[in-house]
């Protein structure tokens, strides 16, 4: 049993470069010249761990960042370039002990076989703290980086053609996750026997072909990597609409959603829970986290002024798919607890400026939530599944 009270919520932080505001790199605390060093990422994750957060996610992409939703923008006034998120996570894993590490992986152009063993390996390296956040890409320029297929250009978000493209990409993502998960289970936990009498290192009856055949790929298996410490590392996805809600409901352990108020949160939670029931997963735990961009200061006017200053530097008002919070840690705690009543089990906060708002979360928000008995006072588990209250799952090939 978890020692955390039931009213407590889960907290993750989404790391992306110097922060989510496009002018964040210009803040004195931002360290933009260190973005491509291990030290930069180790420091951020250490700060998150200091705040007892459940996990960090790390953004990634198979092309340059862009302010445009579909094409490169050729801007020179924002951070461009990033390191592979799985490798960042692995690089910091030996330097941390408790915090979960959840890199983004793109399902659209990658091999599920490679992703499965990479996350399994991250789970070994972190002794049970790995997860992934699966993402699709409809960007034509990113498809051209691989040259294997063209993705029809989406003209408008709401057109039927766009829905078809998006549905197809999410179908592929669902297949991708299915293969990744089956490969994690393709070795039973006790497959390695080291039986000197027969000379066998493994009991091959405890290794399983996965025999997946899908529209975009077929994968035979088994994995080359034994079943990871958590059995099934965490699978998570960000979702804004019915198609991705379905992916979350069917395949994820954690879904990130972006309701702007409690009413919206209720509606989204209801929709995903209904999909979850339809998928026959009603008994499986599925966390739904609200995403928020945060500007945090002890004085609300200071937070607002900082946001304004950054907007001025950026030359435009910052907008986001997620609600943007500006205020004090105490006000944020109020808002999170209010949203929690709608059925959200946790939150993934996107620091507007990593160097400022991450410490404000760990040193301001976390103590505030602890005072309200709404957040852990110490890490109560050694694995990410443990922190999220998820049992280590039985292998699908092993009868209960």
């Amino acid at each position, binding site marked *: 049993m978890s020692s955390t009270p039931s009213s407590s919520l889960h907290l993750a932080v989404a790391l992306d470069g110097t922060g989510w505001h496009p002018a964040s790199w210009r803040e004195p605390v931002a360290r933009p010249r260190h973005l491509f060093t291990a030290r930069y990422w180790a420091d951020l994750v250490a700060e998150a761990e200091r705040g007892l957060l459940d996990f960090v996610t790390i953004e990634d992409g198979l092309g*340059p960042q862009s302010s445009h939703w579909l094409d490169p923008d050729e801007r020179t006034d924002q951070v461009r370039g990033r390191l592979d998120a799985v490798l960042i996570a692995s690089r910091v894993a030996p330097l941390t002990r408790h915090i979960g590490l959840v890199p983004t992986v793109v399902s659209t152009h990658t091999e599920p076989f490679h992703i499965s063993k990479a996350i399994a390996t991250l789970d070994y390296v972190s002794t049970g703290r790995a997860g992934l956040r699966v993402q699709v890409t409809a960007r034509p320029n990113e498809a051209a980086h691989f040259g294997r297929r063209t993705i029809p250009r989406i003209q408008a978000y709401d057109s039927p053609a766009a829905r078809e493209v998006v549905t197809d990409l999410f179908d592929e993502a669902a297949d991708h996750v299915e293969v990744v998960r089956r490969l994690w289970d393709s070795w039973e936990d006790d497959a390695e026997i080291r039986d000197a009498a027969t000379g066998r290192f493994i009991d091959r009856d405890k290794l399983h072909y996965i025999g997946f055949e899908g529209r975009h790929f077929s994968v035979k298996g088994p994995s080359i990597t034994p079943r990871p410490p958590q059995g099934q590392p965490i699978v998570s996805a960000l979702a804004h609409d019915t198609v991705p809600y379905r992916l979350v409901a069917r395949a994820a352990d954690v879904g990130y959603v972006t309701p702007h108020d409690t009413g919206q949160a209720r509606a989204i939670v209801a929709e995903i829970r209904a999909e979850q029931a339809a998928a026959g997963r009603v008994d499986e735990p599925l966390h739904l986290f609200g995403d928020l961009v945060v500007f945090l200061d002890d004085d609300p006017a200071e937070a607002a002024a900082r946001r304004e200053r950054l907007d001025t530097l950026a030359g435009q008002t910052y907008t986001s798919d997620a609600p943007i919070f500006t205020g004090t840690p105490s006000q944020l705690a109020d808002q999170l607890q209010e949203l929690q009543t709608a059925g959200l089990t946790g939150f993934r906060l996107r620091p507007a400026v990593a160097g400022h708002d991450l410490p404000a979360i760990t040193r301001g928000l976390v103590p505030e939530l602890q005072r309200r008995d709404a957040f852990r006072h110490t890490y109560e588990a050694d694995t990410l599944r443990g922190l999220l209250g998820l049992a280590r799952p039985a292998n699908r090939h092993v009868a209960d």
Partner: protein
Amino acid sequence: MSKPLKQIHLAAHFPGVNNTTVWSDPRAGSHIEFSSFAHFAQTAERAKFDFLFLAEGLRLREQGGKIYDLDVVGRPDTFTILAALAAVTEHLGLTGTINSTFNEPYEVARQFASLDHLSGGRSAWNVVTSWDAFTGENFRRGGFLPQEERYSRAKEFLATANELFDSWHGDEILADQETGTFLRDAKAGSFVHTGQHFDIHGQFNVPRSPQGRPVVFQAGDSEEGREFAASEADAIFSRHATLEAGQAFYTDVKSRLAKYGRRPDQLLILPAATFTLADTDAEAEELAKVVRRQQVSGATAIKHLEFVWNRDLSSYDPDGPLPDIDPDVSDNHISKGRAQVRMYRDPLTTAREWRELAAANNWSIRDLVIETGNRQNFIGSAETIARTIDDLVQADASDGFILVPHITPTGLDEFADKVVPLLQERGVFRTEYEGPTLRHQLGLAHPDDLQGEQRAAS
């Protein structure tokens, strides 16, 4: 005048997924827990080794249609484990084998450039190729690649990756907080590649890494492989660790460099080498025999005989005589997923020779497999092994060795403690690392300096 002493390069091969690795030894630890990799890497770094080397296999081996269960089975993802090892070491190079058939240049270039950033310039890439449909069954591409195209794909893959590495020059990131200019050039990372295997364009999204490009290794031994190495590689992971074979290979490959405008010191020859170390030479010889018997159990002997016979020989007694029947020479091979079986190109002749050898020496199947199998390259006391290694390198049989211990993860400990100090005393092995990057340890120029050098020479 004697020529100056060559400095020896040493690397540590994490014990592999094959029968060289003795898992049945009481000292043998996990092959998958990170603590094993960390111990192994830290031992190599303590001994001032140039780099750690990781092999790769993208499908579990099978024999007779069943997963091969007698050797160590299971390994981590190459990139992910190397990135983690960068956190527990400071100078050790991190060399990973990455297949050019079941990956795409954009991803692999991102991963190597990222690893190079995250390790402060210690990444290296052993470029291997494969074509088998067997492995392809785990991937989107499947096994479509004809065997004759594997080097052409590998070459174009590497060339394309180099174009991606070079698409950033290193001076693009200004990150000027005052003026608000992050990038000097909006087009940073732009590339266009049109070729037989890849037709891609766009922008690479990882800025120039400390080494510019990862150090490139090549491992193939064929004519094509040697030519590929001479034109493209910084080092060769070779299999010729003996004096004569080593010298022949060394001379052959180094002589191919001139036609690519390269000097002999721009390509290092580093054979894989096993060793058995003991207090005296006599003890080491005895120990080496014990290890070879550990490496070839009766069950393993039968399976190895099947490589040549290409038949199910499970009914044979490993302590009995060799089969009278001849090998099956049909194309469909009993063993899948290993390169080794291709070494027996004429199985009928090999079978006949082996029967004669076994009869002449009164060998059982297991004896035969042990005696014809690989003997440890270096057997002896620390003094003997240090002298042997030094002699081989000074005689241009190699530029150093990639040592393959047979015990995970402690198999390198004794070598580090006993042999390395003797090499240092002989003045042929470093006592301190030469610099922060793997190129420093290997004496290889940074690609930018190299291009400058070539421009100046032309």
